[in-house]
């Protein structure tokens, strides 16, 4: 499923359907506006963001001890703990837990980590069937597509397309596209899944070192339906999900849903601490690049992310290019700063998929300076030689031109002449600048020339 085309190419494909792009843009901007209303109604909102950011700074600076404390408490609570260095090890652990109980079917609630690890495919190859129970993720799964947004997995799809998928996979009437009716069909189908699966896997939103409990947030109730009906409950979490104390949940739960969709809290914020009698509870701590990201001072703050998706909803590039064009599980601005740490070559294009307008940093509930990091990643990527040749050549030409006043003046003169006398020389299909824009007419003289002339004529009077 992994694509090799870059963001610009994939975005261009998305942009061919202008009506869809406008709709996608508007739907996400509407969510951004709901976030604003919700934030503005919350007293001390900016102080809350500051506090959340400072708590996360503390976590990153003391993660070793918090991990050890969390593990101790999990064990005391009767939860089995595992450590996975990478995706492969994580997937092996899940498989071994299921195999020991001879389980061949599992239900999963939303977990971007297991998406990143390719868990479903790994288990499928070994004869284990996994169903994603979040409605948006379920829709993406039956369409064999990854989620395009971490909070709204199928935000790029129109209801008619979803109706068509339901017709094909769930036998609904052809042409049915009413969201309420489609949701009812999925509710009935997935309830049967919850009732028949012996194992359930959830992601983790927050894990408390002090108590050994972990919190899972959903609006649909799917994590709880799976977990409380299962005999084997598995949770997969990245190391960075830890917070020091239970009382810190107050700060994060106030910020999360308001930043995500403008709701005062997710409908369900479930605190799992001990298995219920007769149930097994397993928790897998996954590194997968987190510890190496901690070694990059310019970028380690991206580990503060609480996966609200706020930066995506506000990003002008995301809204007009769609999440799938980022060819990474976590798309948008936050995905563009997390992905290069994992594979710089594969994701060299992503930090360039931004206007650096800074809107992402302004809405981030944990105050990650996202646009600064995008800018800094560009420098690292160019320095390490991962940028496309076309860009390297034009960058070198630009730096040469700017470093010599004579060359600068000649280049300016030539450019203006071409724009005024032979625009067809630049305004053609091969120049990407002209694909979505028209250039204004060019002035006859440069500012330098105008200044020289006017200063001279002024001196005469």
């Amino acid at each position, binding site marked *: 499923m992994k694509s090799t085309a870059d963001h610009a190419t994939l975005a261009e494909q998305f942009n061919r359907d202008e009506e869809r792009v406008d709709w996608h843009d508007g739907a996400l901007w509407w969510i951004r506006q709901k976030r604003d209303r919700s934030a503005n109604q919350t007293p001390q909102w900016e102080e809350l963001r500051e506090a959340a950011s400072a708590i996360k700074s503390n976590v990153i600076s003391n993660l070793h001890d918090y*991990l050890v404390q969390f593990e101790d408490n999990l064990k005391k609570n009767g939860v089995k703990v595992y450590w*996975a260095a990478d995706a492969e090890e994580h997937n092996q652990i899940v498989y071994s837990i299921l195999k020991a109980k001879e389980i061949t079917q599992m239900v999963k609630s939303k977990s971007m980590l297991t998406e990143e690890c390719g868990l479903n495919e790994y288990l499928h190859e070994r004869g284990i069937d996994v169903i994603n129970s979040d*409605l948006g993720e379920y829709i993406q799964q039956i369409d064999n597509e990854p989620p395009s947004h971490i909070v709204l997995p199928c935000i790029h799809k129109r209801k008619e397309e979803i109706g068509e998928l339901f017709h094909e996979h769930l036998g609904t009437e052809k042409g049915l596209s009413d*969201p309420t009716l489609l949701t009812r069909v999925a509710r009935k189908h997935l309830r049967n899944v919850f009732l028949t699966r012996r194992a359930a896997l959830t992601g983790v939103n927050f894990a408390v070192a002090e108590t050994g409990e972990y919190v899972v947030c959903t609006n649909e109730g*799917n994590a709880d339906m799976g977990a409380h009906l299962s005999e084997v409950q598995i949770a997969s979490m990245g190391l960075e999900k830890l917070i020091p104390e239970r009382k810190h949940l107050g700060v994060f739960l106030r910020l999360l849903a308001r930043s995500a969709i403008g709701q005062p809290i997710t409908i369900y914020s479930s605190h799992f601490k001990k298995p219920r009698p007769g149930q097994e509870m397993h928790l897998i701590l996954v590194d997968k690049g987190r510890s190496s990201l901690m070694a990059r001072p310019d970028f380690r703050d991206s580990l503060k992310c609480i996966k609200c998706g706020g930066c995506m909803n506000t990003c002008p590039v995301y809204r007009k290019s769609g999440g799938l064009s980022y060819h990474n599980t976590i798309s948008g601005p936050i995905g563009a700063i997390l992905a290069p740490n994992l594979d710089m070559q594969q994701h060299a294009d992503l930090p360039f998929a931004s206007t650096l307008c800074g809107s992402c940093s302004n809405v981030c509930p944990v105050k990650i300076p996202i646009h600064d990091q995008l800018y800094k990643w560009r420098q690292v990527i160019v320095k390490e030689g991962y940028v496309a040749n076309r860009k390297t050549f034009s960058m070198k030409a630009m730096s040469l031109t700017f470093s010599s006043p004579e060359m600068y003046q000649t280049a300016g003169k030539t450019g203006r002449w071409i724009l005024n006398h032979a625009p067809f020389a630049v305004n053609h299909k091969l120049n990407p600048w002209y694909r979505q824009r028209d250039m204004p007419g060019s002035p006859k003289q440069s500012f330098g020339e105008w200044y020289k002339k006017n200063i001279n004529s002024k001196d005469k009077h």
Partner: protein
Amino acid sequence: MNSREAILAAVKKNQPALSPLPDISMFKVVEADIASRYTEVFTGIGGQVIAVSELEHIKPLLSEHFDISKRTVTTLPELSDVAELINTEVDPHSFDDVELAIIRARLAVAENGAVWLTESVMGQRIIPYICQHLAVVVTEDSLVSTMHDAYGKIASEDYGFGGFIGGPSKTADIEQALVLGAHGPLSMTIFLIKQ
């Protein structure tokens, strides 16, 4: 070196100098009329709040608002004449046909409408998620303003499972159209006991 040791060693090596925890005691919201605020917020989410002066008064309201000819369960002994008391020992799957569950909240939060439940008031963990309709009894003196106050009360409470529930289950995954009743209850009603 196994993965646990390798990960912990890498984290220790790469973590920056200790950054202090912030003081979060300054987050305070004082509500002049906390019950009105709670009602306004919870109604805004798509829930329903019914104020009553005592628990006994909710009994006649049940048949008015719900189909109690279908399976109705509760953890409140006071309601055992109108609902089946939840058996904490049976297989949780056996609650699949529950139409209405009536349970009591430990506290409720005015800023977001959420109620705090632990497994001891749920009867079984699955109850508030598997029922078609959820009704929660909240006493006025258990209302708090914010999540900070809520965790102040929960403090070092021990539980195997606890959860905030802030309204009926919902989704907007299909074209951002709000649909109540995704996988959990289709509706949520608060019986607010004001003395």
